[in-house]
């Protein structure tokens, strides 16, 4: 299963929100949809779910026009919301019924899901009597209640303690291994790196970079080198004398010396110049940018 958006354009009144968004999410893999607040993530998600239609462009599933109504989509909105005054079981069954499940199937799914989330004891309680973290779990249950083929999670980890985060991680892994399409939106980059093979960064209504995290990192300039040494001071002094012309910036942090080179190509010269001091050196490697750095780099300019 491949879900694609092709050149989505959308404006509200005079405000153009999406200016040609194309992205692709595959079953059995999680896609990280990243972007700053107001970049167009929610609008893209809503178009996928057919809350409104794009001004131009289309959504495709396996190259066929995608009709959201005919598929089960689980959505965990960033702005959490259920009925605060209603019984949890009743709400879950309601959302399952809205998705088209039969009454008994809805109850069965709700029961199983609550069990999986260790929430069975709360089934008869009102939502507003639960702690924030537990409400969050119920929200997740509402997302997954209809056993959706496509799951869209917006900041799923916010407000969860480490134990609950573990439970959620297991659930997401299960979804991925069951071949579901998972679109994952978060500002917590560690979670994105943990679950997503692919990312798409949206900025100012356009996808500014997309592809596998591995490739994106590879494609980034490889001009930052880290040297692990038991005598960073000595090495630093030495490099300042003989390699001043190729080094842009250098700073030591404990055993780690980070050197930013003017050009990628100067790595060899740096490496060979260190041979005399090899006795002090434990490691020498290219420091790839973190996802956070990549995100900032691509979204700093504008929203």
């Amino acid at each position, binding site marked *: 299963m491949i879900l694609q958006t092709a050149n989505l354009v959308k404006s509200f009144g005079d405000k153009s929100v999406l200016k040609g968004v194309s992205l692709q999410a595959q079953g059995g893999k999680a896609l990280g949809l990243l972007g700053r607040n107001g970049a167009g993530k929610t609008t893209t998600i809503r178009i996928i779910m057919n809350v*409104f239609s794009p001004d131009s462009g289309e959504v495709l599933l396996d190259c066929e026009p995608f009709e959201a109504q005919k598929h089960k989509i689980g959505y965990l909105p960033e*702005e959490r*919301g*259920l*009925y*605060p005054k209603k019984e949890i079981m009743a709400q879950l069954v309601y959302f399952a019924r*809205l998705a088209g499940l039969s009454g008994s199937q809805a109850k069965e799914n709700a029961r199983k899901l609550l069990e999986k989330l260790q929430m069975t004891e709360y089934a008869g309680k009102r939502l507003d009597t639960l702690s924030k973290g537990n409400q969050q779990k119920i929200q997740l249950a509402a997302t997954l209640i209809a056993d959706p083929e496509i799951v869209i999670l917006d900041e799923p980890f916010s407000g969860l303690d480490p134990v609950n985060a573990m439970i959620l991680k297991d659930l997401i892994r299960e979804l991925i291994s069951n071949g579901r399409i998972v679109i994952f939106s978060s500002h917590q980059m560690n979670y994105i790196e943990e679950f997503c093979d692919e990312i798409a960064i949206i900025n100012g209504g356009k996808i500014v970079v997309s592809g596998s995290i591995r490739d994106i990192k590879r494609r980034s300039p490889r001009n930052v080198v880290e040297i692990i040494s038991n005598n960073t001071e000595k090495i630093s002094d030495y490099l300042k004398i003989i390699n001043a012309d190729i080094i842009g910036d250098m700073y030591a942090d404990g055993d780690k010396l980070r050197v930013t080179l003017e050009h990628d190509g100067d790595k060899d010269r740096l490496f060979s110049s260190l041979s005399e001091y090899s006795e002090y050196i434990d490691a020498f490697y290219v420091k790839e940018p973190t996802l956070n750095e990549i995100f900032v780099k691509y979204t700093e300019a504008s929203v």
Partner: protein
Amino acid sequence: MKQFFTIFKFELSGYLKNKIFTGLTVILILVMAAVLFFPRFSQSKTPDADSIGTSYASKMLLQESTETDASLLAQCIKQQLGDIEITVADKSEEQMKKEIMDEKYDIAVIMTSPLSYRYIVKTAGITDMTGYAVDDAIISCYRMKKLADLGVPQEEAADILESGVTSEAVIIGNDQSQSFFYTYILMFLLYFAVMVYGQFVAQGVALEKSSRAMELLITSAKPVNLMFGKILGAGAAGLIQLVLLLGSAFGFYAVNRQYWQGNMIIASIFGMPAKMLAFTVLFFVLGFLIYSFMFGAAASLANKLEDINTLTMPVMFCMIITFFITIFSMVGGNVDSPLMKIASFVPVTSPMAMFTRITMGSVSAAEIAVSIAILIASTVLTGYIAAAIYKVGVIMYGKPPKLNELVRAVKNSKK
């Protein structure tokens, strides 16, 4: 359609399971039961009394007097009061007062002239009607005596004095003296039912939006289903409550009918023609729908629950204006005035105005049919427009939009 029923059922069961809703219904039914059963229990102690809330003295002391024939007067009083025990005695006022104090008698009467008297009682009860009966007895006694003086034989005199008038009114239209009370009550019921349930709809919509349950709802259900399911769910709850209240009121009255016969107002309310009840239900349904569509659309633009007050203000004004036009015409006694004629065809005012004209005025079947047809057509149209507003409203956050912004947004969504 399945989705619509899911939403409808969820909304309806939300009302029926709501403790405030069921509690209020039960309380209202209990209040009606208390009112309508009251005479049955208040009268069970004095089962022979003809009407409620009156009492008479049972022992009377009548002073011998030169002014009138005391024994004739005693006869007349007995005629008025039936089982009263009257003692005629020649006693001074002081003695009589003492005997009243000692509770030997309930009342003592001293004639000061043929048409004036003084009476002594220990306590003047609010419901004690003995004085009026004595007045009547003295007057008829006086007249009989005068007629006798003129040479009219006593039996003829009695006939003349007892003659009364009977009349029969032939009313071709509505009898407003009869219909006023039930129209008044039904009008209020209609007004409050539409207002309260319209507000419930508005609150429900705004609550879903402000609690962000809408985020999930709009991705799992069609907005049209969401809106109509919610409105019809509330409407069904309202209808159930209305039918329960009216049904139990009529039930309680039927059980206690014999105890209410002296009460004109209650008798006229429950004596209303059955078709008026049918019209109440019909106009509730239509009035509720057209107003709820407006309430729902307005509330869909709210961000917080507080916003609905401002947003639903125009709708409330429509209701209040309609209410006042109707109520003033009713009180003024002219429910077929030109203003009411217009109001009974304008969709937002017609549920109440036409209803009042049907119950209190004279309106032809054709006029009723045209008014209802206009109302149904506009309800459908309002529903259509409301759904379009709702669809864009529920996903609009931030300050509620101005009218022109809203129109543009709705137009955009139709593209």
